[in-house]
């Protein structure tokens, strides 16, 4: 009875991301960032995208440099462990490859915007951002007095697509996620479509054995991609570590535009698929894989 939502990464990006779409690209800040999908977006030359995330490490910088973004809605964009994002700077400061729009947020205000979208209300109130110039550079924020209090009304966001990574999913998109949540749940609940990248595809019974580990309902999921290593160079708890050197190298090699073009060609354009990417990483990725299991205490759902 259950209809499979399994498809290839190529198909998921091709069918479910349209030019001009707003796309949440990872919502957990520094971990479980869907780099494999970003690379595929570059290969398929999707354009005019509005990229949404609180912090997605260098993923935004890559897509901006590759000319895929029209706008970003974010709290922070750069290279978390190494410093600034040079493509982001080149775009805003010099219009290379073109100047993107920026909708300034803090982590909290972006969290509230996606939560408002999840809730189905036009805004949520907060006491944060009062006195900041985010209220000027992002005119969508609205300051409201309420009796003796002052609040900022954060307008809702309902992205066209959320691309989210999970440890394991069944073929219908019921999935288990563990680790820090960031804005994972808010991103999935607020978006019109959800593309899941999963380290493993497991039988439905595995997911149903622990329904508290599910973060968004399967019926919200549009496509499920079996894509081990999807987050490299970012980490997936229980699967592989962060490739710190990859971020350092990116920082060093992309300082100049020519360097970024070389980097992009080496790691994205000259590569035809995610499997080829993993093959190019070779032993480097093997070394990142976790070797010492650390299991959660058993949980009993017995009912009779």
């Amino acid at each position, binding site marked *: 009875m259950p209809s499979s939502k399994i498809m290839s990464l190529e198909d998921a990006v091709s069918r479910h991301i349209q030019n001009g779409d707003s796309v949440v690209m990872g919502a957990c800040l520094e971990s479980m960032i869907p780099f494999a999908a970003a690379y595929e977006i570059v290969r398929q030359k999707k354009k005019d995208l509005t990229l949404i995330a609180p912090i997605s490490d260098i993923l935004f910088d890559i897509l901006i440099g590759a000319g895929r973004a029209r706008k970003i809605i974010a709290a922070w964009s750069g290279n978390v462990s190494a410093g600034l994002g040079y493509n982001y700077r080149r775009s805003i*400061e010099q219009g290379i490859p073109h100047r993107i729009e920026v909708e300034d947020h803090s982590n909290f205000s972006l969290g509230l915007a996606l939560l408002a979208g999840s809730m189905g209300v036009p805004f949520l109130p907060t006491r944060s951002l009062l006195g900041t110039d985010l209220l000027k550079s992002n005119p969508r924020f609205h300051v409201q007095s309420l009796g003796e209090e002052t609040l900022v009304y954060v307008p809702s966001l309902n992205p066209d697509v959320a691309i989210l990574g999970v440890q394991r999913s069944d073929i219908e998109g019921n999935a288990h996620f563990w680790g820090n949540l960031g804005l994972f749940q808010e991103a999935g609940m607020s978006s019109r479509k959800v593309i899941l990248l999963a380290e493993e595809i497991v039988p439905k019974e595995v997911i149903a054995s622990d329904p508290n580990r599910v973060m968004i309902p399967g019926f919200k999921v549009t496509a499920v991609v079996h894509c081990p290593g999807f987050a490299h160079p970012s980490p997936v708890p229980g699967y592989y570590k*962060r490739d710190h050197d990859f971020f350092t190298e990116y920082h060093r090699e992309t300082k100049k535009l020519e360097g970024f073009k070389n980097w992009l060609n080496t790691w994205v354009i000259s590569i035809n698929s995610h499997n080829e990417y993993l093959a190019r990483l070779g032993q480097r990725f093997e070394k990142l894989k976790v070797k010492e299991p650390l299991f959660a205490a058993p949980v009993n759902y017995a009912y009779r």
Partner: protein
Amino acid sequence: MEYTTEELMVVAAAREIRDSEIVFVGMRLPMLAFCVAKRLHAPNAIGFFECGIVRDEPPEELLYTMGDPANIAGASWCTSTNNLMFLMQQGLIDIGFIGGAEIDQYGNVNTSYLGDYTSPKVKLPGSGGAADIACLSNRLMVIMPHEKRRLVKNVNYITSPGYGTGPGWRQETGLPRGGIKALITNLGILRADKVTKVLIVDTIHPGISKEQIIENTGWDIQFSPDCSETPPPTEEELEVLRSIDPKGFWTKRQTSEVKTPQ
């Protein structure tokens, strides 16, 4: 014992954390400061990491980002960013740490744009959670290099508010609490004057002169009447710090000028 400036800054930051406090931990130096405080004078301190992690034990490995799996294993809570921000909005966060590109005399921090934001000279990474921490925590700590281009009279974009334009500004703006408690630089520790809310020098790091601070500050910097020397790291503090960051990745023991205690 010899130590680097970064080690002194970490230790100074650690000393600001009191026992049983809830700390919104930033990356790099604040992360180390939290661990040092936990091991020494604040064993019951609790760390909030904005990606959605709460810890009451330091992680077993040095972190490069707060989302490293080593920070998740053994955490006391893995949850959403929003849930942690909610608790901060309630007023439950005692102290939060941020960095910045620019800070002004009232402790307002800019990590967004240099120059007019509609056509900036430099695009900086943005707020992350810094604006939230500056608005909603009870005490804000800022850690920054002390340079004239960074410590400016007025920032032209406030990402993370300190005391705005001076006394009463936070209340008028509607901010529920908070304000900058200290700015820790590589030259000294600055704190807001109780009356004017302008940052003044509270302590000067060993080996640093008042003139160096004046030269490297973008406003007419004043010194507290009680201005003294920053106590250097104790042997115990350094030992703990080096056990956490044995290679000095964040504290630049390989690259930075090494100081001898005075």
